[in-house]
């Protein structure tokens, strides 16, 4: 009975990224591309059309030499919960091609339903969604390394980070076969989390107090998942998108860079509103 109760409790998969440890090496980006059959073109230096489900941004503190500091910020899909699953992208999709899964908290993207209107791209405040302007082309033998777990996308659809949802499905299949209904923390990890050589990414169920992500972020579900740890912040917190990706930094200017503030606004007072 107790087991069943546990099963019914909704999970909320999320991430905590420690920006003090992130080195900006880009391994998460490549781990993601390799896992999810992300296509590539000859010129990828126009970042507006360069598909990167996980993208690492470089932040600067804006101070002159030698006080300049930089910090890297990896940006997957935030898997916003909004209020009761009304993520910005989900609520605008006319094709129900993107949906909020209340069981896992993951925002899906169903390529075969998407007809390319790109409303979701406009709605997403994090630029986490990418449009396939061209058909993907894999040179010569390269189709051999495509993974059967993720279908390659065709021209005209939007794609984005899925928190490696196929890994969740595979892990659940395995668990069911073994007669379990609950996953261990390390049974379902995203490709980027696993690859990060610095160990900066932590992934798990934010609703499960035993999971590391919960302990690091201390999310307050009564107030839209607001982090309880003073060094933890979310991007554009004040928009109320209720994202499930939390960032951790010991530097105030980095935490401040996570949202927009007017010039003389009291950051310390307002950043947790």
């Amino acid at each position, binding site marked *: 009975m107790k087991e069943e109760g546990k099963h019914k409790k909704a999970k909320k998969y999320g991430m905590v990224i420690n920006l*003090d*440890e992130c*080195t*900006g*090496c*880009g*391994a998460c*980006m*490549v*781990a993601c*591309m*390799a*896992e999810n059959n992300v296509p*590539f073109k*000859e*010129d*990828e*230096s*126009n*970042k507006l059309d*360069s598909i*990167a489900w996980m993208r*690492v941004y*470089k932040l*600067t503190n*804006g*101070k*002159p*030499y*030698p006080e*300049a*500091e*930089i*910090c*890297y910020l990896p940006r997957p899909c935030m898997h916003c919960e909004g209020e009761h699953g009304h993520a910005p992208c989900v609520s605008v999709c006319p094709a129900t091609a993107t949906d909020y899964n209340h069981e896992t908290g993951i925002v899906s993207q169903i390529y075969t339903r998407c*007809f390319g209107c790109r409303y979701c791209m406009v709605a997403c405040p994090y630029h986490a969604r990418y449009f396939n302007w061209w*058909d*993907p082309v*894999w*040179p*010569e*033998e*390269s*189709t*051999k*390394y*495509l*993974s*059967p777990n993720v279908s*390659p996308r*065709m*021209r*005209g*659809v939007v794609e984005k980070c899925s928190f490696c949802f196929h890994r969740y499905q595979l892990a659940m299949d395995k668990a069911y076969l073994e007669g379990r209904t609950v996953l261990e923390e390390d049974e379902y990890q995203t490709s980027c989390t*696993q*690859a990060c*050589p*610095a*160990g*900066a990414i932590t992934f798990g169920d934010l609703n499960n107090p035993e999971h590391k992500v919960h302990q690091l972020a201390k999310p307050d579900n009564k107030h839209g998942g607001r982090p309880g740890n003073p060094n933890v912040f979310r991007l554009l917190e004040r928009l109320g998108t209720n994202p499930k990706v939390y960032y951790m930094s010991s530097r105030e200017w980095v935490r401040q860079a996570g949202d927009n503030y007017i010039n003389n606004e009291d950051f310390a007072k307002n950043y947790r509103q």
Partner: protein
Amino acid sequence: MKIGRRSFLSFVIGGAAGTAITPLPWKLMDDSSIWSQNWPWTPVPPDGEYSQSNSVCTLCPGGCGITVRKVDDRVVKIEGMKGHPVNDGGLCLMGLSGLQLLYGPTRVKTPLKRVGKRGEGKWEKISWDEAISEVAKKLADIRSNGGSHTVGSIVDSENGTVPNLFKRFLTTYGSPNFMTMPSIQDSYAMTLQVMQGVSAQVGFDAENADFILSFGSGIIDGWGSPVRMFKANSAWKANGKKVVQIEPRLSNTAAKSDKWIPINPGTEAALALGLANIIISNSLDSKKISQSTGFDSFKKLVQNEYGTDKVSKITGINSATIVSLAKNFARASKPLAICGKGQGSIPGSLNEFMAVHALNALVGNINKEGGVWAVTDTEYINWPKPEMDSIAENGMQKERIDGAGSEYPHTKSLLNRLVEVINSGDGSLEALFVSGANPLYSMPGSKAIKNAFDNIPFIVSFSSYMDETASNADLILPNHVYLERYEDVPTPAGLSKPIVGLTRPVVKPQFNTKHVGDVVMLIAKALGGGIADAFSWESYEACLKETLGVKWDILVEKGFEFNGDKCILEGDFNFYPDAMKSLSDFSPVSIEGSAISYPLLLIPYDTIRLANGYIGDPPFAIKTVEDTVLKGKNSCVEINPKTGKELGLTEGRYASLLTPRGKAKVKVHLYEGIMPGIVALPRGLGHTAYDNYLAGKGCNFNELIGSTEDPVSGLDEAWGIRARLTKV
């Protein structure tokens, strides 16, 4: 019916309105786009049986354990191997994109013989038998004409069975010209040789250090064994250990350190000695060390020549910072100083290495937890000494063409001098083998190297990829890539505990390639006589099995095996070897070019996202490169906004970068993290070979710089060159 103006207009307007109102065109457009989305060129990856196998990545000297995921006989993903002592599950982006090298368009798929002019790209496919007999015939001719010593080989390192097979081949053939690609490992090895009389590689117990003083080493930019350093860096962060980074540019390493101290480039040795002076004057040095050879002379040197004020003037770092750095370093319980700039592809100034090593000795961290150790790791290769015939004996008596071992007694290999010797006509090579290296791209002064290579009549490349050197060769005998072959992986760069790993085939060879070890043996067998006798093994695999002996089974099972415990750096420490005498009058590392015609200083920088050695960036890796590093076909240079203002250059403007060695069109990126007066350019771009995903992007730093000989080692010490940046 008469068609008047009126009826014509109503027909057109009515038709247009009708077409707009009917859903037909929209429906057709929609249908056709949906239909074309379903065209069969969007691949559907076939499903199959899933399996996993472990191996070791050899894309860099890092030696990370990898686990590959397979579906039937296709490899679909490479991941870091959990529990591996080097990387424990993590992997860098190059390792992660390895499948693009295996299945990628840049592979050489069969032996190729050049038919057009060199570098023209016209090849004829030949069989392996033809290829091997062609090489054997050429070598037999050279040998019978008494020119055995004019054959040389360039390989990536001197450790492991494959380089040793090349060495053995050249020895029995009669040539001393076994050359390796230069790196900081050469400078470290020589430092140990000169200061302690030990012949070993250096190892750092980095994980256990608690104060890391890095003289420009790219700890998280690909220095040493990259993933291991990433892990160490995270452990330092988690445990509150301090990292101080000294370099003129805010690199990723500097950005992640606890303190970034910009320094005038080329003056690092002066800072190390200045720190030594403060440590000695404040009696913060390890007491045991003062009885060491040369300590008194060293003490005199630093006290007389490296007073804090003088050092401050040389390095551009203020005195208070130097004093507090020295005190913090010496007072830490396990301090560790490291050097070798960026990823460590340029050997650097030996003075700097000696000064930094002395600093380590001064705080007593040699052979200590968190300190410096020796690595002597090819001990598992114990092949019987080969029989040498008279030609071989004679050939081996000859001096090396690069002057290593004679003009520069402690140096083993001097590729930078080889180029100079050939170009000045002082020596020549009749044939050259290149394996696991791409000197035409990755060595400074690529134009001079190209010249030298043009003077070598017969070049054989063993490259798996169509790289710059392969595309300028006469014959390409393609090796399997690392996922298709067996090979031993000796202790990765900088590890303090000797370990041997085994790369093994996780997939059958995809093309008509052959293991380079087998090819060397086949060539030897075709030459016959004593050369053939020296290679009695049936195949490379048999050779490797025999060499590894009892270790083989363990390696096959778990992929790695510790090769004994940490090795002690034996030998008395000499604080003031002869090689250090030039430091009595400090001059910064020499920089080519005059400051009048070239007012700026161009330095390279390394990032883990750009590979600059034998392997070029695969498509995934190049995709991660920021648009402030590479934009379209142009590399971006970093300059301080102050410098930009002086030159009238704004963000994103095109500019012409001119050095005494070359010229390039670049884009300007204003960056507050760089010292005014310095221009920084990333290494790893500007390839002319490989595939369309890499070739023709940006400019190659190595074309803009030449090499400068270190007066002690003869190795290349040039870290920068004078430059001019003008609007275009």
